[in-house]
């Protein structure tokens, strides 16, 4: 059993990474998938396989494996977007070392986590190297939003897709921590195929936020703007996640009429059935959410006012 065998539910992605490890694929790769689907884990496992000087098994604890896992290997350069976008300086600093030979490993690896968060000058600085990468260098660019990666970068990379993880797999992991199977299933579904999200939501009890969003939807249906606006203000910094939950609730409202077993928020199915939100309002909310997402692609921050407007227009006056 090798390290990449540890990656589950991503057969297609793993197949490409095995070719990289075997030296059959040397071109830069753009690994596309939502956060928590195993992109970064799989990439690091592939890098471990390339760098490992030990047993090459998942539990190997050779110095190279430890350094790769800690992100501190001399031949592994990780550039990642945190709260700031990736600027040209970070890319230039990393590329300075691209031309030199690897220090200890057979190849030098550049892992750019958040390729969509590179500024345009940073992406342009990377272009030339991506076009003709040194033979001893491998590039892995990770993104959850492929369309925001500039086309010239996309065209120079091989695309590897990391799809949503199967529900059964996420449920099996969550069930190890969560005794309540019904709750584990809800967390699994609201995470939408992302193990990372499922674990994070479960760890921070995000069903509480989902319940707040549901109560906002209820207040909207009563057209009580004073209470509705106060409840939206109370969401504070949780607005982006709240909008995701709102979208799921709206999907459930559409689905519950046809197949209640397929809804995401199974634990509140009764409340959803009782909610008075007609199809026209639901569609207006969905369209409004789409507008918010489109208009905030550049500014990122969604103000409570935008959410209030969404509800005020959807529920009508």
């Amino acid at each position, binding site marked *: 059993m090798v390290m990449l065998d540890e990656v589950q539910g991503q057969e297609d992605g793993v197949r490409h990474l095995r070719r990289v490890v075997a030296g059959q694929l040397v071109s830069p790769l753009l690994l596309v998938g939502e956060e928590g689907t195993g992109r970064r884990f799989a990439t690091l496992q592939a890098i471990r396989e390339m760098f490992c000087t030990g047993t090459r098994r998942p539990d190997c604890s050779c110095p190279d494996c430890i350094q790769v896992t800690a992100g501190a290997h001399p031949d592994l350069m990780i550039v990642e977007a945190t709260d700031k976008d990736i600027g040209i300086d970070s890319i230039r600093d990393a590329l300075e070392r691209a031309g030199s030979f690897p220090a200890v490993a057979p190849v030098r690896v550049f892992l750019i986590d958040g390729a969509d968060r590179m500024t345009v000058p940073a992406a342009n600085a990377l272009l030339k190297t991506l076009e003709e990468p040194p033979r001893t260098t491998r590039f892995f660019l990770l993104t959850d939003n492929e369309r925001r990666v500039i086309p010239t970068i996309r065209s120079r990379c091989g695309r590897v897709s990391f799809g949503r993880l199967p529900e059964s797999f996420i449920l099996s992991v969550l069930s190890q921590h969560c005794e309540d199977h019904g709750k584990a299933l809800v967390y699994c579904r609201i995470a939408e195929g992302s193990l990372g999200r499922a674990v994070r939501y479960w760890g921070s009890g995000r069903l509480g936020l989902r319940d707040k969003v549901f109560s906002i939807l209820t207040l909207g249906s009563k057209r009580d703007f*004073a209470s509705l*606006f106060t409840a939206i203000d109370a969401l504070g910094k949780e607005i982006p996640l709240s909008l995701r939950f709102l979208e799921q609730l709206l999907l459930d409202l559409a689905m519950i009429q046809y197949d209640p077993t397929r809804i995401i928020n199974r634990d509140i199915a009764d409340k959803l059935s009782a909610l008075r939100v007609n199809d026209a309002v639901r569609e207006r909310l969905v369209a409004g959410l789409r507008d918010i997402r489109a*208009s905030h692609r550049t500014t990122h921050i969604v103000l409570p*006012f935008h959410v209030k407007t969404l509800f005020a227009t959807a529920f009508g006056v």
Partner: protein
Amino acid sequence: MAKPASTPLPFRVFYGAEDFFLDRAIERAKQWEGRRVTVLDGEEDSERDIVAACVMPYVDDEPGSKRVIIVDNAGKLKGDRGLRSYIDSKDRLDDTAILVAIVRSEKLSEVWQTAASKGQSFEHKKLLTWDNKNQVVDWIGKEAAACGITLGADLSKTLYNGVGNDLYRLASEIRKIALLVGDGGKPTLKDLQLVVTASPSAEPWQVAEAAVAKDSRRAMRLVSTVYKNMGDEALVPVVNALMRQIEKLVVARQMLDRGASEEEIAAGADMTRGRLFYFLPMVRKHDLRTLVGHMVRLCKLDVNVKGAANSKRTLVELAVLAIAGEGVAA
């Protein structure tokens, strides 16, 4: 043991968001008679420097000499162990060194709270200019009295309208008027016009208030003044102010339509009864459907102003006109 009334306490902490009063506290402390004055800055000097200034003897110290140590921007200091132990160990009766801390924020850190508890603290909040109580106008009257002249409420208001809410400028203008009319004088409107250089100021919330009051001329004049004073940076605050006002209007209008009482409307729109008294006539000028339309327009405007749209000022002006006027599309 009771503390003698004349002995000053070892710590004086001035804090708040009104820089004028804090600067004035510094000036007054600098003029403390019979004490050697040392001025330090929390942005440049460390806690160690402050403690040293309080306890280390100077070469030319005379026996029994006393000192005042003024620390500007004291809020920037983290309050290390040395400073903490100095404050903790300082005897309340020991007035050889008086530490005057100027914290330019509304909250005191733990170390300055301790100092304040062993001495005195003075809070200087930003003076309110909204609601039906204009504290700046009240302050003008008091400041004039301190300068030896009598400025009535009307003239204080006139001075405020002409100069704005910059207390530094207002204080200078009051001193000029006092010099003109002399000690004990009672200035007239003519005296004010002779001395004061009018440079109107405007705040983003005033733009929003004029717009929702449907006073389009005043709203446009205020937009122009805000833009003149703040430049492009004025646009986001103006849009935010418009959003806040429209939001309150939507809530109040809906409650009014539903026959809610004034208490309920005041609670729903998060304002005092006094404020609601001025706000309700504005609410009556709008209908809910149009207000929701303004919300949609403001959302688009917010994205445009923060993004890369061209002619942002024009977009803001169009939105103000759309709210203030009738049938103007932004």
